[in-house]
């Protein structure tokens, strides 16, 4: 079976996000005054082979912990679905 893992890695709360801050300021300059917060992150789409969905989830989680996110500054969320 093939599965598709969609991973979003963002900075942990409180960790400085200069990119988000600069983009927020730019949006304000373009008169989107209503913007209160901009958070940047990384998105990964991973197609993988696995026997079950649970296995795919386990593997993706492992990838997040070992490579995709640095637990010191980042957190991640992901979802796995069947890939056709």
């Amino acid at each position, binding site marked *: 079976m093939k599965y598709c893992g969609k991973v979003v890695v963002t900075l942990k709360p409180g960790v400085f996000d200069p*990119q988000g801050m600069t983009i927020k300021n*730019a949006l304000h300059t373009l008169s989107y005054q209503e913007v209160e917060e901009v958070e940047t992150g990384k998105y990964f789409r991973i197609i993988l082979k696995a026997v079950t969905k649970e296995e795919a989830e386990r593997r993706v989680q492992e990838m997040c912990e070992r490579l995709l996110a640095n637990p010191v500054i980042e957190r991640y969320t992901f979802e796995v679905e069947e890939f056709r």
Partner: protein
Amino acid sequence: MRFGVVVFPGSNCDYDCFYALRDVLGQDVVFLWHKNTDLQGCDCIILPGGFSYGDYLRTGAIARFSPIMEAVRDFVLQGGLVLGICNGFQILLESGLLPGALLPNRNGRFICRYVYLRVENANTPFTCLCTPGEILRIPIAHYQGNFFLPQDELGILTERGQVVFRYCGPQGEVSEAYNPNGSVGNVAGIASSDFRVMGMMPHPERACEEILGSVDGRKIFLSIVAWLEEKRYAGCGS
């Protein structure tokens, strides 16, 4: 005749351009702050290299909304000359003043080194002192210099002579082996259809003095000077 070098927050080749033009080439040059809209009577505007707004979001994406870019747009409509170098090229693309996009380098890394460029069109305000096919040795320094344009559009651009520079070997051979960043067709610099706007990834301001290893960059600035002086409107494409 006067050059204007735009200073965006995060520009870092602004002073290098200024120095090359004023101290090396003896030209009249002023800095133009990005928040102003007065181009101070400049005849050629340079958008310098660097990391405007930290390259956050996309390179050049925030700088294009700077007040000065509106003035630059009007200036272009009136036939003024604009040269975008590296980040300046990226700003021109984001602004829609030139076609295409710049993607991250094929190898995924920043590259700083000398490259060879072949002059594909010596009949522009930026290259009129070069000979067709001339080879220039000028450094690149970028993370996103991988020029992209769909093949058919590139075909049209090429046909019209808007491809001004291609990356090449020391003998002028244009091939994958001499493509530093993966640019389609080895494109290193392009011009607008009226040839008044040019964007290029290599840094001519870094190649204006013997002591730095090359003076080939002078040709680009001096072409602008010659063109403006002689008003060589004819033979420049249109």
